[in-house]
C-alpha cells in the first residue's frame, strides 16, 4: 500500500520531490510529448497494415464484372439527361434505370431551412435503389453512394461514378451470392443529402431541431454495415485516392481502408492516400520526413472535424465508410489507367468481401493515424504523446496545490480564510456561463428581426466578435484577483479543466486534441499569479496570442497566403479576414445541421477556460496583502 502510506501529516517524500522538480518535470514531459509525436512517423515506431478480420477474404474470388459497355452507355445517356435538368438531379431517369435493372427504387425528399433564417428553405432529392439480398433476410445492408453534382457545381464532376454504380447494380442483381442488401444511393447537395438520407433511415435528428427536415423513406434495407462513396471524375482513372476522415474526426475501421487499398492495387491502379503514393528511399531522415508530412496532412484534415467526403457522415451511425476518389491524371510516372472494367472490379471486390463479413467490423483499429496507405500508427503508440503533454497540466496543478497547502500550514495565523472558495467557484462558473451565452449568440441574433436588413454573415459574425472581445475585460471585474491564494486556486482549477478537456478531445479527435495541446499547454505552464509586472505583461501577451480566435485567424491567414502567394499583403489580409468570417459561420452551420461539436466545444469550454487563465494573468497583489485581506474579513 505504498500510495496509501502516510508520510507524517506534513509533506511526504514524493511531494517534496514534486515541489522541487515540478518545473523541470513539466518541461521534460512537454518536450518528450512533442518528440514522441515527431517520432511516431518513423517507420520503426509504427507497423505495416494487415488484415485483422479473417472473414473479409480480400481478393480471393475471381472478378467477373464485365459490364463496362453498359457503364459507358449509361454515362452517355446520363450526360444527355443532365442537360435537361441543369440544376437538379435527373431523378425520373435514375428511377427508371433502377427499376429497369430490377431494384426497388425510391425517391427521398428533404428540406433544409437556413440556420439563420428559418423562412428560407431549400429542398433536395435523393434517389436510391435497394438490391434485396437473395440469400439473406435483409437484416444487413451495404451502401454504395455517390454524390450527384450538377454541371453548375464548383466541385469536379462525378457522372462516371453514377454510370459505374448503375452498371455494377446491373451486374450485382444477376448474382446469387449476396447475403446483404445493397443500397445504391445518389444524393444531391453534397453532404446535406447524405445527412438527410441517414437521418431519415434511422429516424433521428442529429443537429438542431427544425433545420434539416429529413422527410421519410419509403423503403429500407437492413442495418447498414459499411458504405463506399464514389467520386470518380473521369471514365479513365489514373489515380485512386482513398479518403477516410469523417465528421468530428472519426475514422472508419482500418480493415475497410486496407480492403479498399488492396483492391485498388489488385486492379493495378495507382493508389494514394492524401494524394501521395508509395515512395521508397534509403535515407532514413527523408523517409521519416515523407511519412511525417503525410501524417500531418491527414491530421490537419482530421482536426477540423469536417468530413472530406460524403463517407464522413456515416461514421456517426456506426457505419464504416470511405470515399474512393478517382482522378484521370496520375502523379506516378508510367502508371497505367484503368477503365470502367477495372473500376467495376474494384467495387465488386470490395462488396464481395464485405458480403463475407459475419459480424460488423469490430477487429482491427478504429483509432489510428496513417503516415501512408500501407503503414499505420495505433492508438497505443500515439496516445502517449498527448498524455505526456496533458500530464504536465496535472503535475503542475498538483505541485501548486501542495505548495499552497504548505504555505497555509506555515503561516498559521493566515488560516484559509484568505481563500474565498465560494468566490472562486462563482468566477469559474461565470466564465462558463458567458461561454454558454456566446455559443447561443448566433441563434439569438438570427432570430432578432430588426437585424434582418444586414447580410447573414455580418449579423452573426460581428456580434459574436464583439461579445468575445468584450469578455476580455472581464478580469477587471473580478475582485479576487487581489488575493494570491484565490488566484492560485483558480489557476489550479483552470489547469485541471484544460487537462481534462484535452484528454476528452483527444479520445474523440486525436489530431485536434494534440494540436490544441501543443499550442495551449506551454502557454498555460507559463501562467502563474505573480506580482512581477514584466512577468504578468508577458503572460498576458502570450495568453492573448492563444485565444482561439487569434489562432483561427493565424491559421486562415497562413492558408490564404499559401493559396494566393502572388497577391499583395493587403489583399491577403482582406481575403484572410473574409475567410475567417466564413469559417466561423460554417462551423456554426455545421454544428446546427450535422452536429459538429467543434464550435460548441470552443465556445463552451475553451473560451471560458481561456478566460480563467486570463483572469489569473491579471492578478494584482502585493506580498502581504493577503494578511490585510484576512484581517478585513475578521473585522467584518
Amino acid at each position: 500500500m505504498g500510495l496509501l502510506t502516510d508520510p507524517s501529516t506534513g509533506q511526504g517524500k514524493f511531494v517534496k520531490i514534486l515541489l522541487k522538480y515540478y518545473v523541470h518535470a513539466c518541461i521534460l514531459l512537454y518536450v518528450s510529448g512533442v518528440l514522441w509525436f515527431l517520432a511516431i512517423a518513423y517507420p520503426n515506431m509504427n507497423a505495416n497494415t494487415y488484415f485483422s478480420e479473417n472473414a473479409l477474404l480480400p481478393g480471393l474470388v475471381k472478378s467477373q464484372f464485365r459490364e463496362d459497355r453498359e457503364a459507358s452507355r449509361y454515362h452517355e445517356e446520363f450526360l444527355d439527361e443532365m442537360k435537361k435538368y441543369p440544376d437538379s438531379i435527373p431523378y425520373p431517369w435514375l428511377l427508371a434505370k433502377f427499376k429497369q435493372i430490377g431494384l426497388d427504387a425510391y425517391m427521398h425528399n428533404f428540406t433544409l431551412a437556413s440556420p439563420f433564417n428559418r423562412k428560407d428553405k431549400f429542398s433536395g432529392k435523393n434517389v436510391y435503389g435497394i438490391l434485396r439480398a437473395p440469400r439473406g433476410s435483409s437484416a444487413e445492408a451495404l451502401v454504395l453512394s455517390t454524390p450527384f453534382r450538377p454541371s453548375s457545381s464548383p466541385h469536379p464532376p462525378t457522372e462516371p461514378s453514377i454510370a459505374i454504380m448503375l452498371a455494377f447494380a446491373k451486374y450485382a442483381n444477376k448474382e446469387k451470392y449476396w447475403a446483404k442488401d445493397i443500397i445504391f444511393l445518389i444524393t444531391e447537395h453534397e453532404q446535406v443529402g447524405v445527412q438527410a438520407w441517414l437521418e431519415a433511415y434511422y429516424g433521428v435528428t442529429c443537429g438542431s431541431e427544425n433545420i434539416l427536415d429529413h422527410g421519410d423513406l419509403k423503403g429500407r434495407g437492413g442495418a447498414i454495415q459499411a458504405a463506399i462513396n464514389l467520386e470518380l471524375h473521369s471514365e479513365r482513372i489514373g489515380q485512386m485516392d482513398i479518403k477516410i476522415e469523417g465528421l468530428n474526426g472519426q475514422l472508419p475501421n482500418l480493415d475497410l481502408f486496407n480492403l479498399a487499398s488492396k483492391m485498388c492495387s489488385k486492379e493495378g491502379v495507382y493508389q494514394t492516400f492524401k494524394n501521395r503514393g508509395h515512395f521508397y528511399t534509403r535515407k532514413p531522415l527523408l523517409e521519416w520526413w515523407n511519412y511525417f508530412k503525410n501524417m500531418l496532412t491527414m491530421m490537419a484534415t482530421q482536426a477540423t472535424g469536417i468530413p472530406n467526403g460524403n463517407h464522413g457522415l456515416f461514421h456517426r451511425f456506426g457505419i464504416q465508410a470511405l470515399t474512393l476518389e478517382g482522378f484521370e491524371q496520375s502523379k506516378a510516372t508510367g502508371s497505367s489507367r484503368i477503365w470502367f472494367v477495372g473500376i467495376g472490379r474494384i467495387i465488386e471486390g470490395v462488396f464481395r468481401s464485405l458480403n463475407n463479413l459475419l459480424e460488423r467490423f469490430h477487429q482491427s483499429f478504429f483509432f489510428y493515424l496513417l503516415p501512408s496507405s500501407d503503414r499505420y500508427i495505433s492508438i497505443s503508440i500515439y496516445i502517449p504523446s498527448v498524455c505526456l503533454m496533458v500530464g504536465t497540466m496535472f503535475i503542475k496543478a498538483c505541485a501548486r496545490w501542495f505548495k499552497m497547502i504548505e504555505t497555509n500550514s506555515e503561516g498559521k495565523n493566515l488560516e484559509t480564510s484568505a481563500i474565498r472558495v465560494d468566490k472562486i467557484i462563482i468566477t469559474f462558473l461565470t466564465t462558463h456561463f458567458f461561454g454558454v451565452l456566446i455559443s447561443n449568440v448566433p441563434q439569438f441574433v438570427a432570430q432578432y428581426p430588426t437585424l434582418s436588413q444586414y447580410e447573414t454573415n455580418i449579423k452573426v459574425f460581428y456580434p459574436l466578435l464583439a461579445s468575445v472581445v468584450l469578455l476580455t475585460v472581464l478580469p477587471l471585474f473580478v475582485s479576487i484577483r487581489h488575493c494570491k491564494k484565490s488566484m492560485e486556486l483558480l489557476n489550479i482549477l483552470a489547469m485541471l479543466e484544460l487537462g481534462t478537456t484535452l484528454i476528452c478531445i483527444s479520445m474523440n479527435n486525436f489530431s485536434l486534441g494534440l494540436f490544441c495541446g501543443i499550442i495551449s499547454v506551454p502557454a498555460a505552464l507559463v501562467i502563474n499569479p505573480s506580482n512581477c509586472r514584466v512577468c504578468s505583461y508577458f503572460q498576458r501577451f502570450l495568453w492573448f496570442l492563444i485565444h482561439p480566435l487569434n489562432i483561427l485567424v493565424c491559421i486562415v491567414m497562413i492558408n490564404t497566403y499559401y493559396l494566393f502567394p502572388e497577391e499583395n499583403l493587403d489583399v491577403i489580409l482582406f481575403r484572410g479576414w473574409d475567410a475567417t468570417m466564413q469559417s466561423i459561420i460554417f462551423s456554426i452551420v455545421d454544428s446546427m445541421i450535422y452536429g459538429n461539436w467543434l464550435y460548441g466545444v470552443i465556445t463552451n469550454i475553451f473560451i471560458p477556460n481561456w478566460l480563467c487563465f486570463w483572469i489569473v494573468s491579471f492578478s494584482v497583489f502585493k506580498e502581504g496583502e493577503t494578511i490585510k485581506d484576512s484581517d478585513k474579513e475578521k473585522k467584518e
Partner: protein
Amino acid sequence: MKLAPLDITSNIDNTITKYTNVKSTKILRTLQLFIKMSVKIRAAYTNSISTSRIIFTCLAAVIVRYYLMLSKYQTVIANHVEVSTPLNSWKRVSEGLYLISKNINPYEGDVLHETPLSLYLYKNILLVFQDRIHLAFITFDVATAIILFFTTKKFNWDLFVEEENNKETFAKDAVECFLKPEKLFKSSYYVLLTYLFNPFTLFSCVGYSTTVFYNFYLAVMMFCMVHGISVICGIFLALAASVSFYPVVLILPVTMYFKYAIKSNFKIIINLFSFITTSVLIMLMCTDFGKDFSYIRNVYGCILTVPDLQPNIGLFWYFFTEMFEHFRELFIYAFQINNTILYLVPISLRFRKHPFLLTVAINFIITIFKSYPSVGDVGFVLSVVPSFPHLFPFSQQGFLVGTMLIISTSLAPILYYLWIYCNSANANFYFGVTLSFAVAQIFLLTDLLFSQVKRDYMLKYGKNRKIDGEEGILCLE
C-alpha cells in the same frame, strides 16, 4: 473553554467518568455540558448557519433542478447508463405502473426491478403531486439534503461534546488537531451544499432515478440514528433494505451507534425489533400476504445474481460479460461477499468508537461494490464526507482523488458514446474509466478511514513519533 468537571468521580479518574457517564442519562449530560460550555461555542453552534442562507441554498437548488428538468437535457440525462440502471430507471417504473393499471403482473417480464411497495409509494406520490413527477423528485431530493444537514449537525455536536468530555485523556501536544468549533459547525452547511449541487446527485434527480427515494430512506435512517429515534431508524433501514437489499448490513453500524454513541442497550433491541417487524411487514405486503412471490426473483434475484449486464459505473457488468459461464456462480458469491460481509466485521471492529464514520464507510463500500450502482448513490456518500472536517488535515489523497473523479466522470459519457453510438471504442475503454472511478472512491474511503486512525493516534500519543530517535512513519499493513 475547557470544561470543569462537575462530577466528583471524574476528578478521581477518567475511566470512572466514562462508566458513570453511561449510567447518567444522556439528556442530563448534555444539559450539564450546555451549562458548562462557554457562551461562544453555543453561539457558534446555533448561529453557525443562518436559516435564510439554508432556504436560499435550497431555493437555488430547486431552480437549477427545475430548469434542467424542463429543458431538453432531461431525456439525455435520464438515458445515461450512469444515471439510470435497470434497478432505478423511472422509465421502468412507469412501465410497471402502466402494467399494474392494466391488471398485468409487472413481474412476469424482465422490465421491473422495484418492489411492489415502492410501486405503491410511487403511485401515491404521483397522486399527491398530481402527476408532476419533477416536483416529486425535487421535493424528495431537497428533503434528503435538509435531513442530511440536520443529521450531520447533530453528529458534529455530539462529536464535539464527546471530545470535550475526553480532553483529559489526550496527549498534551495534540492541541492543534483538536476540533475547532467554528469550522466544525459549518461543515453541515457544506454537506447541504455538496448534496444539492454536486453533479452526481443533480443528474440523478434530474434523470428521475429512483435512487432519490432510496437516498431519502438512508438519510432519514441516519437522522434517526444520530438522534436516537430507534423505532423510525429501524423502519427506514428496513425500507432501504427492501429497495436495494445491501443496506441490510447497515444494521451492524447502526447497532454500534446505539451501543457506543448513545450507549443504550434498550434502543438496540427496539431498533432490531422495529427493523425485523417492518421487514416482515414489507415482505407480507409485497407478497400480498404470502400469495405472490414473483417479485422476489425480479428484485432480489436481479440484485444478487446480476442477470442484466447493461453497463453501469460498477464493476460487475464487465466481469460477468467476459467470464466463462460455468464460473459465474463462483464469482457471484465472491463479488457479493466482497460487497457485503468481507469488510463489514473488520471495519466495524476497528471503528466501533466512531460509529457514524463506520456507517458512512459501510455505505460507501456498498456503493462502490454493489451490482447496479448509479451516480445518485455516489453523490449521496460523497456529500456526507464534508462532515468530517477534522479528518481533512490528515488526509493525503485529496488531490489525487479529486482529479481521478473529474477525469473519469468526464470521460465516461464520452467513451460510452464512442462505444455504443459511434461503434469505434469498445467495452474496455468504458470499463477502464469505471475502474478508475471505483479506484478513486476506494482511495477516498481508505484515506478517510486512515485519517481517523492517524487522528486517534495523534490524540493519544501526541505529535512526537520518534522511534529510536528517528522519525516514525504511520503506515497501513
